[in-house]
């Protein structure tokens, strides 16, 4: 492990320094709502256990223009909205969300076609993670392949050592970012030991451990299982679980006219929990009720996605558990699946 040591003031200085040269996004508290947003000063940063809205929306915005069109003399001109070729820093990303990006990467980069908007932004992004020392009851990252100190997806990982911080260098990209700053000390062996110690404690403190071995195979035979009919009953069909999820990436596209001769094509987040998501022009809907839509969400995360990309599409952040208006708990659903 390589890293640099900062005291609290130096960290602010380091971030303010980053802000001078590039856009920095970090968790903030906006009238009680914690989310990631561009910051102009390190003092705006608000470290909660986890922000309500994940950092997903910085690289995969809720609403973005793909291109504009303009009609001129019977002709049409298209202009692609180019993602700015500028380095951005995502600061304070919890390891679970950083892993979420890895999962979205797979879906958006695989196959014959690539999602250029997301991927361009992703390429230009440096992720500075923040290790998660106090996982909550609702956290289950270790059950789905992650860790509260996971390095997957982060370039640098910040550890809070009480009096000071250790910024661990994880990737080349991360190393490059801090390489030029010589004034911060290299982490000493004792600091590294300390990180290892708190990492061990954090991992051991995970209260929720789910046994998900072979869940993919298990679900193979559960498409028609009566279980779905029981668990979907209380679901009200809103989009909270999918919109707050750091791994859900489904979207919709539509056009918006600006004037009669020009406009734009927009893409927005969409959710498999909405009936319109799969409603066909003919009026047929392959997923007509909450039962099918709930099944789709679970199947996608724990069977379809693993089949296609060899990973579970859930990072165990627990947002869907905490924010579900009717306390429909994914852990409970998973336990039911596993004991079926």
């Amino acid at each position, binding site marked *: 492990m390589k890293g640099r040591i900062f005291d609290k003031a130096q960290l602010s200085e380091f971030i303010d320094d980053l802000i001078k040269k590039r856009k920095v996004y970090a968790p903030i508290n906006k009238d009680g709502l914690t989310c990631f947003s561009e910051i102009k000063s390190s003092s705006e940063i608000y470290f909660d256990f986890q922000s309500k809205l994940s950092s997903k929306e910085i690289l995969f915005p809720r609403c973005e223009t793909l291109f504009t069109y303009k*009609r001129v003399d019977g002709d049409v001109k298209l202009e692609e909205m180019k993602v700015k070729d500028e380095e951005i820093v995502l600061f304070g990303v919890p390891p679970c969300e950083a892993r979420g990006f890895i999962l979205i990467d797979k879906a958006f980069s695989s196959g*014959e076609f690539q999602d250029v908007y997301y991927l*361009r932004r992703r390429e230009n992004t440096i992720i500075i993670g923040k290790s998660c020392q106090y996982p909550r009851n609702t956290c289950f990252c270790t059950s789905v392949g992650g860790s509260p100190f996971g390095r997957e997806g982060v370039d640098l990982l910040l550890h809070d050592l009480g009096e000071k911080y250790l910024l661990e260098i994880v990737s080349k990209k991360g190393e490059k970012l801090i390489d030029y700053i010589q004034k911060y000390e290299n982490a000493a062996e004792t600091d590294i030991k300390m990180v290892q110690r708190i990492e061990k404690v954090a991992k051991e403190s995970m209260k929720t451990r789910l046994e998900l071995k072979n869940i993919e195979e298990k679900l193979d035979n559960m498409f028609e299982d009566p279980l779905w009919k029981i668990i979907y009953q209380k679901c009200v069909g809103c989009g909270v679980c999918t919109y707050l999820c750091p791994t859900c990436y489904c979207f919709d596209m539509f056009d918006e006219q600006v004037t009669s001769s020009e406009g734009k094509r927009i893409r927005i987040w969409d959710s498999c929990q909405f009936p319109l998501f799969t409603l066909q022009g003919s009026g047929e809907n392959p997923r007509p009720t909450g039962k099918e839509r709930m099944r789709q969400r679970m199947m996608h995360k724990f*069977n379809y*996605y693993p089949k296609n990309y060899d990973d579970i599409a859930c990072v165990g952040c627990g947002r869907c558990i905490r924010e579900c208006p009717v306390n429909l708990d994914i852990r409970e659903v998973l336990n039911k699946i596993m004991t079926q």
Partner: protein
Amino acid sequence: MLNPYLPNLTVIKKITQENDLNDIKTFKLAFKNSNKFRDFKYRCGQFAELSLFGVGECPIGIASSPSDNFLEFTVKKVGMVTTALHNCEEGEIIGVRGPYGNGWPIERLESHDIFILGGGFAFTTLRSLIKYILHEENREKFGKLCVIYGTRDPGELLYKYDLRTWATRDDIQVIPTIDRASNGWVGRVGFPNQIIKEVASDTENSLAIICGPPIMIRFTIPILVKLGFPPKNILTSLEMRMKCGIGKCGRCNIGNKFVCKDGPVFSYKELQNMPKEH
């Protein structure tokens, strides 16, 4: 990185009214940039996303054949985008992105007898396939070709001009049929799934291709199986709501397969192994 969401600009060269109700039209398109058309290499059974700027996109099967030097789509007026398209006039510019999907497995069809069953509006990509097979460079690669095409009434038969030409050829058997007897109709009356019983031969070595409303597919497949077509030789093309067309937006999956990317053509054998969600 190529931007897959950016449509190619095309000009509507010709609009053909296809049916009496006038809610189905064929649009012949020409790429504004002919180099782009050269890159737009498509197979029979693939689809493309048509863009009506300011309205949106919708996925439409390609109705022309790769052996043609143009691009045609037959579109039924159903929703927002298709209505806007129907309101277009020749000369207007629309966007096309694609081609997408797997298309009909031409290599597998070669040197086999082929039975094509079409129902109603879903005849478009079948027409592409038939045109391809009948093309002089391709015809001898395939075996017998039999097409049974059913609609509600005679006025709803698409591509009447093609049907007439095909009727004059002896290397294709075309059986247009309508659901109920109608004045002036001298052809067959009845559903394609009944007529196939009369014409099917050597089914174990032949392929059956079926496209139509879900109800027709549901009733026809068991009959085809009974006639002896092996499940892997029964092919169909699925409908699903789509947006991106490239397997990203997440809505058109059946199990872990995306209809837009891994389909829309699936064999009955594949469908048997997929969740019943289509």
